[in-house]
């Protein structure tokens, strides 16, 4: 529910590039950390959990345009390091299927990884507080709190990058009121925001909204409305949080009844099936 469904090119370059750098750094660190032991077990495990998240994220609940994430489930089962990698894998594949945008992939990885890591940790904390008999409730509370956190992260990211960005970005587009192309780049090429995404610096064209300028000289009526965006997200978001909480509670509750070791000991603690040496190709 909470990852950025923001198209490519809406957020400024510095923001999404920073997201890419940060995401690659934590994925690299998580990868190197995970490679220390038992890679053969981790690779297929990561693949199936990423596939599950992928299936969930790409299955839209028609007609309300929601989808579940299963990130908390993944976070509980995988632990922090593998969660970061699973978040990256799911986002990379989704981006190539046109879902989510390639430029915001780094930011999305950070958000989903946060959701999984915080969700996993919070679930264990809530279970410790209210007991192992209430796995479903623990999962539901954890999911709502975690999704509220990551949704706030998403709004924060849009606020950081999008608030003033639209004003000069829309320069060069057809003005629907006059059916003319405005020429607003009076401050030159670099201050037109080509390399900065257009945020700040550029003076907006005269016209509607110019009377209500913000402190950066950008007309308030021409910027992305963070307030409106936040209102829409915090109005529609809780419906998604509740859907996700119900699904997460149902799944983790089921797993706690059927195979509790997966939750309490983690997916990597599954009893190993020993393969006889002659089947592995080893000879004494």
């Amino acid at each position: 529910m909470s990852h950025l469904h923001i198209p490519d090119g809406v957020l400024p370059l510095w923001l999404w590039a920073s997201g890419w750098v940060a995401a690659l750094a934590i994925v690299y660190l998580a990868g190197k950390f995970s490679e220390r032991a038992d890679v053969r077990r981790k690779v297929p495990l990561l693949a199936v959990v990423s596939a599950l998240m992928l299936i969930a994220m790409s299955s839209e609940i028609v007609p309300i345009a929601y989808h579940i994430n299963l990130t908390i489930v993944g976070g509980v089962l995988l632990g922090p390091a593998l969660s970061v990698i699973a978040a990256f894998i799911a986002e990379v594949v989704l981006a190539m299927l046109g879902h989510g945008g390639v430029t915001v992939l780094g930011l999305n990885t950070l958000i989903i990884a946060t959701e999984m890591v915080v969700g996993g940790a919070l679930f264990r904390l809530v279970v410790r507080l209210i007991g192992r008999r209430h796995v479903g409730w623990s999962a539901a509370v954890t999911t709502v709190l975690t999704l509220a956190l990551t949704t706030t992260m998403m709004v924060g990211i849009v606020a950081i990058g999008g608030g003033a960005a639209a004003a000069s970005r829309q320069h060069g587009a057809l003005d629907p009121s006059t059916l003319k192309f405005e020429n607003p780049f009076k401050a030159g090429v670099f201050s037109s925001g080509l390399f900065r995404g257009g945020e700040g610096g550029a003076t907006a064209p005269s016209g509607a909204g110019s009377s209500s300028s913000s402190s950066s000289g950008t007309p308030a009526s021409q910027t992305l409305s963070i307030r409106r965006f936040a209102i829409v997200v915090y109005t529609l978001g809780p419906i998604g949080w509740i859907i996700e909480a119900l699904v997460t509670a149902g799944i983790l509750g089921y797993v706690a009844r059927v195979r509790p070791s997966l939750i309490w000991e983690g997916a990597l603690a599954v009893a190993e099936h020993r393969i006889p040496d002659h089947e592995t190709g080893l000879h004494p």
Partner: protein
Amino acid sequence: MNLGVIDTSATSGSSWLHRLSPRTKLVAFALILAAVVTTWNILIVATLVVLVSAAVLSARLRGRLAFGLAAYPGLFALIFAFASAPDVMTGAVIVLKAVTAALAAVTVVLTTPYPQVFAPVQRIVPTVVGDALLMTYRATFLLLEKFSNLLRSMRLRAGIAGVHPVHSARTTTRALGGLLLYSFDLSQRDYDIMRLRGYAGRLQAELPRSASPAIDAAVIAFAVLLLGVSVLWRVAWQTLNPFSWLPLAGASVVLIVSLVARWRTS
């Protein structure tokens, strides 16, 4: 998500796009993405989407699948645009950008087998990340098939019925729980197989060479040209804005030619 159809299109097609080197397609995609990111001129974005559509049509890809996949992010972009755009024009550009970038990505995925799309990523990330990325696709196939069979059997046994939404939701959630357990068994089986086959880290994904380097070079050159147009219209707006219709007119001609060619060969 119909992964089977996507995979069939990627592996069984023989169009000019399928014959391009995966590297060429990925570079061209990156250039088109850069063009989408750079411009905020709605007619330039429209030019890009028309040209990518022409590529889809000329390669005889399934139009409903390609445009349907590209429309999905458009839906979310519409919500974002509604929630934050200051006016209709900015909102329209936001939606069009989403659809254009998604259509370009989908075109690559529909004409390139999955391992070849992600092989370049696999080479630069740690082993566990790269290998899991390649294995995810196979796992997605298996889990999708299993989940669909599970849902069908539940429907047949009246576990899922429209008149009992709460009961149906509970059953579906349990099916997801069952799928989760199945997926862990699957990962255990994969682990056993990998041990038996002597996996020691790093799966090999080959990137085939181009069948016709000249066409590859032409595609890259055209993508560079598109990025150039996008940058030019952003930088030299004072001179060029009144002529923004020109690239779109050219792209429209290309689209019509593609449509005619597709119609004549069908």
